[in-house]
């Protein structure tokens, strides 16, 4: 089962990882522990691989710091669902292989709810309900499989 972590609108990168935890102040592999360290201290301690974030519009706004997306990716999140994402965050997530879904599930799924996320079946099952997930763009599917868009593009660059 996956747990839902609910967040509001305009979640900014300073909330996700404050600038004071920039990578060379922090060991890379530890970055996941600083996800939402001040904005929501219970998150990093309790999040498990496979969990989902459900948020409002403009998730990831603010700085270009890729380590914000990286910190969330390192927690093993299976996806972030929001009606829209800040564009730099969206690019960063695509490059790293963190799965973003442009969908508004705030009415459907509440904080702490336990669900079953069947990515292959493109469906979230929650207490007898089934929420269909829109088919992600083909490029992103390939990117996610390769471990991120960057992996695909660097493979091209090496050729």
């Amino acid at each position, binding site marked *: 089962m996956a747990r839902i972590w609910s967040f509001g609108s305009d979640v900014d990168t300073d909330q996700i990882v*404050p600038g004071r935890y920039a990578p060379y102040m922090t060991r890379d592999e530890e970055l996941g522990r600083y996800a939402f360290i*001040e904005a929501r201290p219970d998150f990093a301690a309790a999040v498990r691989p496979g969990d989902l974030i459900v948020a409002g519009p403009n998730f990831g706004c603010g700085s*270009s*710091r*890729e380590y914000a997306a990286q910190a969330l990716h390192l927690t093993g999140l299976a996806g972030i669902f929001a009606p829209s994402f*800040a564009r730099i965050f969206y690019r960063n997530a695509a490059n790293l292989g963190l799965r973003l879904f442009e969908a508004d599930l705030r009415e459907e799924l509440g904080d702490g709810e336990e669900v079953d996320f069947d990515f292959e079946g493109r469906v979230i099952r929650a207490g007898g309900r089934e929420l269909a997930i829109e088919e992600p763009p083909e490029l992103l599917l390939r990117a996610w499989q390769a471990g*991120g868009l960057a992996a695909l593009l660097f493979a091209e660059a090496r050729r």
Partner: protein
Amino acid sequence: MASLAEKILGRAVGRGLRPGEVVEVTAQRIMVHDSIAPAVRRILTANLGHDRPLHPERMAVVIDHVAPAANLATAESQRDLRGWVAANGIRDFHDAGDGIAHQLLIEDRIARPGEIVIGSDSHSTSYGAVCAFGTGMGATDIALAVATGRTWFRVPETIRIEVTGSFGPGVGAKDLALTVTGRLGADGAIYSALEYRGVAALSVAERTTLASMAVEAGAKVGLVHPEGLPAEQAAPDWLLADDDHEPRGRRLEIDLDRLEPMLARPGRVDDVAPISEFEGRAVDVVYVGTCTNGRHEDIARVAGLLRGRRVAAGTRLIVVPASRASMAAAVADGSIATLLEAGAVIGPPGCGACIGRHMGVLAAGEVCLFTGNRNFRGRMGSPEAEIYLGSPEVAAATAVAGRLGDPRAILEVIC
């Protein structure tokens, strides 16, 4: 008819474009700063086995985010960055103390009208001040561009900001930028281009304030129409030619004559209201600086209002020039002397405390009036500090009163 964003991207691919198309283009300039450079190099090495830029002559490297170094970790990281710059023959290198990357790229004409300039920093939208397609990206995107010389974009929709009138006393470009952010909302321009029109009378400094803050509404670029740029930064004819009579996208109309000094409340860049709603709130720190409002013009405005006055007891005024040239000009015209006499602290040119890493970070419970661009919780230090965004003029009035204040009140005394 093409918007400025469509024109610049269209020129790069040699055909007309419509919003929504995805294009691959040459990155004519790539800016990397000290905070992201280690990640860019690590990503390059991990993926290519080396970290050499394909085109060193297109790189611009700046040490501005923690400049000079604050501690051993930043010092060693910056030492390594200098080594990388030297080993790769990167000529556009600015070391600690030269200033903020965005200001330097504009000042030194590294970012030029009509060019595509990407940077490892979200405020790379600043280059829109000279009508360059400036935009920020994360470390991996920048590493890909450093390795291949190329990057990709989705051609953005354009939101036109039609400006009429002129600024009244005590009102300026920051109030316009805050008004636009408030009207559009923090996600109002997501994936889109902002295009400022009717601002031919504005200086490059004022244009930079507008372009830098475009990203606060989520915009990909903030292009200021190049009409009225100084001769040495004039745009090429293809960019100036005004063939855009019928914009397709959204429009916002703003009459400068009716604009008031504006503030953004702590926590949200788009929670904007006129100064009258805030007057009287006690302030611990007034911070003047950043790529949004740290230029000579901004410093001179603050000094102009502080001449013959003192910073209120119990309030600190910190002034951090955006570049060495800004600081030199402020020394030459006496602004820095005025500020020192008034009781200000002057920091070395750079980002200063803008991202809460050093030199003026805020403690829990402190209230700051900031001329920068972001007031997110925890941005400048403690998450329990409060950051109000405002103009240099509001900063001056606030420093004198020790409370959020309206610059028009002091201006009346001067007149």
